[in-house]
């Protein structure tokens, strides 16, 4: 989660104006970390789902969480495509700030929905 949402947050903060000295093109190098986090999460999440299927599947928060993660990943991929390649300074591309804000909102929402699964599940373990 720290690799995935944390690294995305760093990219978003840069696009929102933190650490302006950091060239935009270098942000592309952070994407392998994001994907490492994504696959780690997908794998361990799948294992947990198999282990405790009723907990997630009976909780509305689980489906909301999956949708928010999907949306956040779409935003991150769209951001990556728009990042300038090559060296040198490049101005912020149009639409960068709204996308970064969306990313922050979607990741926070995904974390919140994930936390709330326990509290909204009909039953954690099938009786």
């Amino acid at each position: 989660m720290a690799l995935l949402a944390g690294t995305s947050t760093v990219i978003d903060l840069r696009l929102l104006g933190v650490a302006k000295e950091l060239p935009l093109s270098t942000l592309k190098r952070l994407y392998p970390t994001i994907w490492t986090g994504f696959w780690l999460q997908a794998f361990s999440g799948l294992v947990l789902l198999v282990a405790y299927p009723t907990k997630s599947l009976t909780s509305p928060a689980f489906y909301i969480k999956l949708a928010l993660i999907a949306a956040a990943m779409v935003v991150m991929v769209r951001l990556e495509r728009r990042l300038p390649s090559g060296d040198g300074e490049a101005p912020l591309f149009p639409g960068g700030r709204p996308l970064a804000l969306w990313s922050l909102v979607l990741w926070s929402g995904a974390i919140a929905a994930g936390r709330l699964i326990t509290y909204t599940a009909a039953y954690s373990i099938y009786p």
Partner: protein
Amino acid sequence: MNLAHLHLLLNHWPIIGTFIAVGMFLVALVARSDDLKQATLALFALMALMAIPAYLTGHIAQDRLQNEPGVSESLITAHQGAALLALVALTFTGMFAWAGLWQYRRASRLSGWTVAAVLACSLLTISLMVVTGNTGGAIRHPEILSAEPATSMVATIGSRANASIEYAVTGSTRWVWPVLEVLHFVGLALLLGTTGILNLRLLGFYKQLPAGPLHRFIPWGAAGLGLNVVTGMLFFLGMPFFYVYNADFLVKIGAVVLAGASLLLHCTNLFSDCERLEAGQDAPLGAKVLAAGSIALWVAVIVLGRYMPLFEDTLDPRYTLLQ
């Protein structure tokens, strides 16, 4: 040695350390010494971190003493109330001190409002620490008791605050706890994401990125740490006895203090070379050791946090250190 020793081992440091830091700060202001000011600010922030375990372990000592003959329960309540207010004041002192350290990194000077804030908060802290130390000492030292009533206004306010926090977190609605959990996890992502990228860069992972700009994300990591200290303390105040006999919890708090200190080191002069690292340059060995230690400690904090529910009551309530 038993578990109640922990409180006695830890509780003198934040009181004496804060007194020393206030003295150092006054000398530094008169002598206009920037080095001494920075050392003092770091000491304030360190004391704020060390006050956390000092406060938490108080519950163990309280539990141990509660049914002893000659121990005044109202004195323990008064001590706890004063300690809570002192902890809050010291946390504010530590946050402003950290902001001052950051100003030194970015602007090489301290702004007037930071000096005023640190001074005001630290003076408030030591006056609350006096009440805390006095009521705490009196619990087991009847020779210092005077004819005055055992409680003071400070202690009353503090113990009322304690009781209302406990009610708000666990008794009011069932949604306070989940909301705090969400904030705790958002703080985690912020803290680990920002400091993690910088630490990985220092270790040589994203060598094409210059290190200086990555250092600018540190305040966001510090904000994440602040959020997690506050939400974490609220969890604790909500149900202290779920935590204090949990071996996993005590180790986690130790790791938080060390990891927090590593975040502090990132903001001192010791590693100012790192900020000048351009793309492709290798970090000095000291910085790599700090980065590796920091990552290891934060990962340990996460793992210990996740496994905490499995370790409830693993420590013997009869206070031998390990069962």
